[in-house]
């Protein structure tokens, strides 16, 4: 179908573009930006006046729970929530049941997401067999089946020898490793950041060194081996400075941060609020500020949702009995936009953190509005104000720490492969 998106404020960081204009779509691809192609007659027109038109958002970390935990959420429910939030690509983690450590599970995820016809899903495969941290997964087979990276999800690889060999093997197969860094022994039993708040609440804490020790260990191995590694969901100022230092020495690494860690701290756990029981833990104010600065200065590339929906029975319990995770995917865009008001992050940088930069990390062709690219596009009203109501979330998970927060920025259209998948009424 031929579509014209007219008069929108186009922000395409990949092409350094920020101007008002039209976008032309045909047969699932962008065929014109600004300039109308010859003989182009639109079958559908979208009036994007007063709105921003940008590449569809790319979220490098969200839990879809299918296969195996469909009582929590399904590929359909979460990709639909994502599509309504401007997200056109989601990377799901391998800790499904069964684990994404063999091609049949990859094929299942790809087939179910294709059938859902909502956001695209790019699966991240397991780094170790069963995510057990002992034997290598069949990384090359997973890559051929469609995995865009490998990871051990949130499960620490305590055996340093295994981590070394896994990094070597992933390099051999030319696949990026997404590494979540937390020392398994120091973080065992921890349910929040170890600090003043955890002492007051009498809750077992995860010290900052659990992250920095794991990052240091990984960096030293990467220096030796040369694997391309993406450090996921950094939560500490000290961990961030290790990443910055390694980047300045020329290591081919990148890092992201979860949206919750840019807005919340351990103080938000104050009244044993289980919606703030998240991994990585919400750390201190100075960590939050450092992460924001890291985004602005480029140490952090992209922002992910770290979306983890849960049923109320998993959260409506005393704090340590709850399951960790927050429902955040529907707030990813407005919470990123609010950083433009609250920090020195520019609008273009904010959009880049959700589009061109994550695309680059996973080697996706999308995340930009170049002519010839697949038409994955997000159109949003940057001035629209709305209030988060947990009961009205589209996600199967109502466990959001942002309940009652005021959001500025609301998606009006989401286009995936040239089809209007979501339209706000």
């Amino acid at each position: 179908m031929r579509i014209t998106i007219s008069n929108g404020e186009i922000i395409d960081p990949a092409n350094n573009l920020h101007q008002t204009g039209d976008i032309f779509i045909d047969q699932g691809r962008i065929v014109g930006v600004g300039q109308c192609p010859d003989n182009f007659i639109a079958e559908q027109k979208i009036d994007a006046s007063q709105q921003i038109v940008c590449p569809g958002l790319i979220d490098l970390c969200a839990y879809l729970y299918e296969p195996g935990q469909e009582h929590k959420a399904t590929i359909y429910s979460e990709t639909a929530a994502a599509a309504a939030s401007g997200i056109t690509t989601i990377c799901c983690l391998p800790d499904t049941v069964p684990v994404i450590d063999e091609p049949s599970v990859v094929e299942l995820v790809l087939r179910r997401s294709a059938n859902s016809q909502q956001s695209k899903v790019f699966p991240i495969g397991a780094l170790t067999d069963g995510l057990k941290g002992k034997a290598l997964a069949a990384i090359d087979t997973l890559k051929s089946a469609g995995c865009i990276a490998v990871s051990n999800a949130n499960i620490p690889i305590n055996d340093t020898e295994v981590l070394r060999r896994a990094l070597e093997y992933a390099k051999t197969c030319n696949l990026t490793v997404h590494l979540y860094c937390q020392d398994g022994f120091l973080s065992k039993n921890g349910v929040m950041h170890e600090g003043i708040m955890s002492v007051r609440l009498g809750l077992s804490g995860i010290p900052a060194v659990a992250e920095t020790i794991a990052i240091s260990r990984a960096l030293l191995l990467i220096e030796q081996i040369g694997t391309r590694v993406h450090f996921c969901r950094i939560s500490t100022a000290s961990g961030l400075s290790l990443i910055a230092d390694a980047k300045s020495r020329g290591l081919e690494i990148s890092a992201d941060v979860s949206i919750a860690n840019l807005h919340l701290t351990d103080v938000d756990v104050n009244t044993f609020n289980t919606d703030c029981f998240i991994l990585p833990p919400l750390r201190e104010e100075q960590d939050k500020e450092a992460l924001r600065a890291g985004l602005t200065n480029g140490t952090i590339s992209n922002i992910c949702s770290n979306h983890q929906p849960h049923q109320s029975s998993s959260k409506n319990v005393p704090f340590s009995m709850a399951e960790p995770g927050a429902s955040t995917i529907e707030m990813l865009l407005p919470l990123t936009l609010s950083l433009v008001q609250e920090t020195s992050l520019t609008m273009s940088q904010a959009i880049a953190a959700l589009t061109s930069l994550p695309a680059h990390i996973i080697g996706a062709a999308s995340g930009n509005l170049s002519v010839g690219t697949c038409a994955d596009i997000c159109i949003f009203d940057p001035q629209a104000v709305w209030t988060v109501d947990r009961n009205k979330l589209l996600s199967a998970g109502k466990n959001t720490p942002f309940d009652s927060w005021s959001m500025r920025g609301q998606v009006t259209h989401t286009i995936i492969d040239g089809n209007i998948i979501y339209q706000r009424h």
Partner: protein
Amino acid sequence: MSINHLQINEQGRLRHFLTTEGIDRALLVDILDYAESFVTIVQRAVKKVPLLRGKTVANLFFEPSTRTRTTFELAAKRLSADVLSLDMPISATQKGESMADTLHTLQAMHCDMFIVRHAYSGAAHFIASQVSSHVHVINGGDGCHAHPTQAILDMFTIRRHKPDFTSLKVAIVGDILHSRVARSEIYALRSMGVSEIRVIGPKTLIPDHIESLGVYPYYEMNDGLIDVDVIIMLRLQRERMHSALLPGGHEYFQRYGLTEHRFALARSDAIIMHPGPINRGVEIDSAVVNNKRSLILQQVSYGIAVRMAIMAMIMGHPQE
């Protein structure tokens, strides 16, 4: 939202009793004064008052306890309440549904008050957030977080012997890391205006950031006890210790046990307290337990009066 948003109602009165954190001196003194009136009752021949007649109090103990449960039962019975004591099964696979379901069932039976003891921090807050508006919750100890009634009875005991809190140096000795008693005591002592609170123990049992609670850590017992007025000894909570926090054997007693020699470093009129149960030869020497300045048994008997006062107060009874 503050930690007190559940326990204090809009009129500034106690609706639940979950933590001593945020309880100001005026309210603490009210509770202590009210408890004084119950001390004489427990010494009478007929030990009952009808304040809670017709009310049902349920002890929900998810963690084993003889002493605390017995004192709460006695306190409730002496207020003429009907008492239910429920031993909830403790299991690593225990799911939240069961607790929520139990609560709803008990509420359907029109219980007026729950006394809760649980292995997990925040459990009493959780229960208080679930119950309907006419039901009251008292925290009998939740994980490592709080044991507010113990702190109140300790303040009561101290006040009976050393009424001027502002001049006192108090030392709390032992497993501060896992101690809900220590945390509740620290908040209460600070509200009462104690000039110096020390925590004494090995580094592994004293959390980083403890100074943020307004206390001074000491890792040498002999330094920490000098000139102290009140010594509060804690039991080693081995059941909460998951990792390499202490060597086995007698080393803990060698470094941190309260012996007569160490007791002599404190002021000559210093008092000794312990929430119990005591482990002779582990944290405290038998000779010291039997010393006339050891108030351990007084704490037990004051505990009943204090709990009667708290229960009566949160059920809405003004001070006589």
